[in-house]
């Protein structure tokens, strides 16, 4: 019975809460029980926040009783470890931040709290959101609920796995090159990355500032849309946040796709390394969308090949600078027996940062160095402009772009950790959206070999409503729903 309460969408849970059939406390209890049973296998969470959930659930129940419940009143929420919540340890999946309790709450999280969400805990991720499998966490890897021997994707793997395993109804992630959409695809849930500037980044521990965006994981397109709308909009604490009203996202986001032109970029459709099972799932999705009245058009994103290279210059360059503040002087890990300040920096950072973070800091430092700046960083920025133009050009021929989210389904834990380049290729279909700052969603689109496949819909800048409309129409026509996995170690496929 209580497991039923962990399979709900926001919409269904809100109805039950309004009717008085259940209380927010019931919802929380059901989730906590399930977490106690399953999370030792999934390992989606890094830490839990019982003081917060007790207070927030009580408040939600009061609001519901008084008939003035905000839209997310009582809805269990999981928060990725890169988002600050006042008084809750935030480590960005890194040992270097161990013990750091921020005295402020990220704007996006604060807005969901205002909307009534109940925070259950902090989810695991790749260290500083650098990775595509959550294996780079400074704590432990997270397991895919559909197959515990496989990765959940990353970097927001903990949030994706929590929603997939019935350990939260909605979760927050961040997407710098695909870190929401790719794990959503690998875990069979909905994951949305909004237009750059749609959601305030205040309180998000930065990886690459010009690419990072916060977005939701959910079990339905509607759930993702309402959650995103509630956290969107201008924030005086983030100069890059847009003053467009967040609620515009919901305008016309529920219509049909009849007469819409959906572009399939040939560079994405035939991307190197795409698995046949993924390809056939996408073919089936295109067929369903055609039947629903959409017109499939061929488009081209000619600079796709250069996107990965440009991304792996720009993102490390920004991260090399963003991570300079982790010096052991004011917070987190601190080495005390260093003979001088330079040695202290070296010891703290060697001890606190994992391999991938150190690799990217070095790559980025190199790319920005005098004598190399023009050849690397500047060139990468020019490629970024070309990629934006590719998308602008494509959107003159279509309303939205359709592709697979990830060329592969979830891969076995450990299979790519020795080969960073193969790991980087996980993001080949998603990072273009970050370089161009565009909104994109991944929705469940069947399975390949028993593992979830994700369908990616990309829209033009500020075109979240178009993205939601296509995704929702597909969800409806395909009758494909994000299902909740109940893993047990015995189900592992070894």
């Amino acid at each position, binding site marked *: 019975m209580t497991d039923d309460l962990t399979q709900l969408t926001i919409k269904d849970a809100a109805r039950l809460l309004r009717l008085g059939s259940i209380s927010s406390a019931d919802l929380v209890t059901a989730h906590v029980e399930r977490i106690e049973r399953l999370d030792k296998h999934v390992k989606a969470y890094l830490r839990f926040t019982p003081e917060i959930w007790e207070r927030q659930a009580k408040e939600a129940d009061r609001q519901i009783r008084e008939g003035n419940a905000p839209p997310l009143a009582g809805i269990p929420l999981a928060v990725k470890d*890169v*988002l*600050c919540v006042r008084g809750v340890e*935030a480590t*960005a999946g890194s040992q270097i*931040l161990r013990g*750091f309790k*921020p*005295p*402020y709450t*990220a704007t996006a999280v604060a807005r969901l709290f205002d909307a009534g969400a109940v925070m259950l805990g902090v989810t695991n991720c790749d260290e500083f959101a650098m990775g595509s499998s959550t294996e780079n966490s400074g704590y432990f890897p997270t397991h895919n609920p559909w197959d515990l021997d496989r990765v959940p994707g990353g970097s927001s793997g903990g949030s994706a796995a929590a929603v997939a395993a019935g350990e939260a109804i909605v979760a927050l992630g961040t997407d710098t090159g695909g870190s929401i959409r790719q794990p959503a695809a690998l875990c069979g849930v909905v994951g949305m990355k909004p237009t750059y500037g749609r959601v305030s*980044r*205040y*309180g*998000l*521990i*930065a990886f*690459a*500032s*010009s690419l990072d965006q916060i977005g939701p994981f959910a079990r339905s397109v509607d759930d993702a849309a309402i959650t995103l709308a509630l956290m969107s909009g201008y924030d*005086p*604490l*983030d*100069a*890059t946040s847009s003053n467009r009203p967040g609620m515009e996202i919901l305008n016309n986001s529920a219509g049909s796709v009849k007469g819409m032109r959906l572009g399939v970029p040939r560079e994405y459709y035939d991307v190197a390394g795409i698995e046949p099972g993924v390809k056939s799932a996408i073919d089936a999705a295109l067929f369903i969308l055609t039947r629903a009245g959409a017109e499939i058009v061929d488009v081209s994103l000619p600079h796709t090949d250069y996107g990965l290279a440009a991304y792996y210059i720009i993102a490390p*360059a*920004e991260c*090399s*600078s963003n*991570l*300079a*503040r*982790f*010096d052991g*002087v*004011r*917070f987190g890990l601190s080495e005390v027996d260093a003979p*001088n*300040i330079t040695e202290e*920096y070296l010891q703290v950072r060697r001890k606190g940062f994992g391999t991938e973070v150190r690799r990217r800091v070095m790559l980025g*430092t190199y790319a*920005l*160095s*005098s004598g190399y*700046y023009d050849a690397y*960083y500047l060139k990468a920025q020019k490629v970024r402009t070309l990629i934006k133009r590719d998308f602008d050009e494509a959107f003159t021929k279509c309303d939205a772009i359709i592709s697979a989210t990830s060329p592969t389904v979830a891969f076995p834990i450990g299979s790519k950790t020795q080969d960073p380049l193969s790991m980087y290729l996980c993001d080949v279909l998603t990072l273009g959206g970050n370089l161009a700052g565009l909104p994109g969603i991944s929705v469940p689109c069947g399975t390949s070999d028993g593992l979830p496949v994700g369908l990616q819909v990309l829209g033009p800048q500020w075109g979240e409503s178009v993205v939601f409309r296509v995704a929702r129409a597909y969800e409806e026509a395909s009758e494909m729903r994000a299902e909740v996995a109940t893993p047990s170690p015995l189900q592992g496929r070894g």
Partner: protein
Amino acid sequence: MDGWEVVIGMEVHVQPKTLTKMFCGCAVAPLNAPPNTYVCEVCLGLPGVLPVPNRAAVEACLKTALALNCEIPRHTKFDRKNYMYPDLPKGYQISQYDLPMSVDGHLEVGSRKVRIRRVHLEEDTGKLIHAGDKLHKAWESYVDLNRAGVPLMEIVSEPDLRSADEARDYAMELRTLLRTIGASEADMEKGQMRAEPNISIRRPETEEFGVKTELKNINSFRALHRAILYEVDRQTQALESGRTIVQETRGWSESEQRTFSQRSKEFAEDYRYFPEPDIPPLELDRAWIEELRRALPELPSVRRTRLLEHLPAAQVAVIGNDRDLADLFESAVASGAPALATANWIVNEVAPSGKLVSAEYLAELMKMLQDGAITRDSAREVYAESVETGRTPAEIVAEHGYSQVSDESELRVVAAAVIDANPKAVADYRGGKKQAMQALMQDLRKRAPHANPKVANKVLLELLA
């Protein structure tokens, strides 16, 4: 010195007058605030926080640029200057690199037109306090981040200055300009203005510049002047004895009155500048710029030219370099005060104390002084009391009976008493020592502070004759 030409360029950092810091809502800390009491998550560089530029700082920088005849581009942006140091919480300083707020201006200093290369905006760092001598040898080092994130304008000149005098005059003219337009208090002693001259010497008639050194830790105009003189002398001696100059940053030691090597450019840091991704490029709206330009007050150079028509250069040098004094002078004269006497009063009495009354009051006082209605000593007291109480000079004079006594018969009584009491001085005077008169007048003023000194002197002379 002979046979060498001095070449100086100036980098001046100025703290614009703002209530809050450059990228956060923290108040700018007053001088000597307890360490780390004017800080927040943003200027502490905690994880996850973001900078938002301060409009007032941008405005002060644009006003300064306009007053320095700079060109203001349509777009400007912030950049990150990356280096790790404990006084720099984020590991980078937000500054401006290749698209500064303004370029290509000039400032006239005496007969020299000094070209301004750029004026840009950045944030200050924190302060380190070492228990030992240098960071690496110190037992303990303390970090005070009150200043971290305080806005700074950096004003960079071309190497157009040719002497220590010119460099000092340039810095002083800059201060006058900044105060006049209200962009900054520009008080060097309070660290609101820091001048960093770069200095080289070369043989006259040569095109190429010599190797330059840059001086830091200068916190007064006097120190600026002395440091440059020292450095020019050091470079001259080095070159004349066949040694070479190393391009480096040198500190000025106030206690030892000499410069010392701080860091060599051989190991120059690579700052890895790149555009600050947390702040979108700023579009500088033309209408806004024009509005700022129209709102600029009369600039000091223009005002000085006008003042020189009525006053000697010495007075203009004081009055023309302080907007408040110049305003006081011109308004008082407009209210009927005598120009020269008022200028002298402002130079000798107002400027040193820095205490100003209203122009109407000053005019009233100056007229009373000119008419001989009060003595100069009384005028001083009246002025001080007027500053303190805000009452009119006429009221104060009436209340204290400061009105000057010019009646010869009354003064003759006092003068007789003075002669009786000072037989030696009287004898000296009559014996031909005219200076003895001073002692007699002094005694007279003591006995009758309100005596009109001119009349008293005349009466005393008559009695002595």
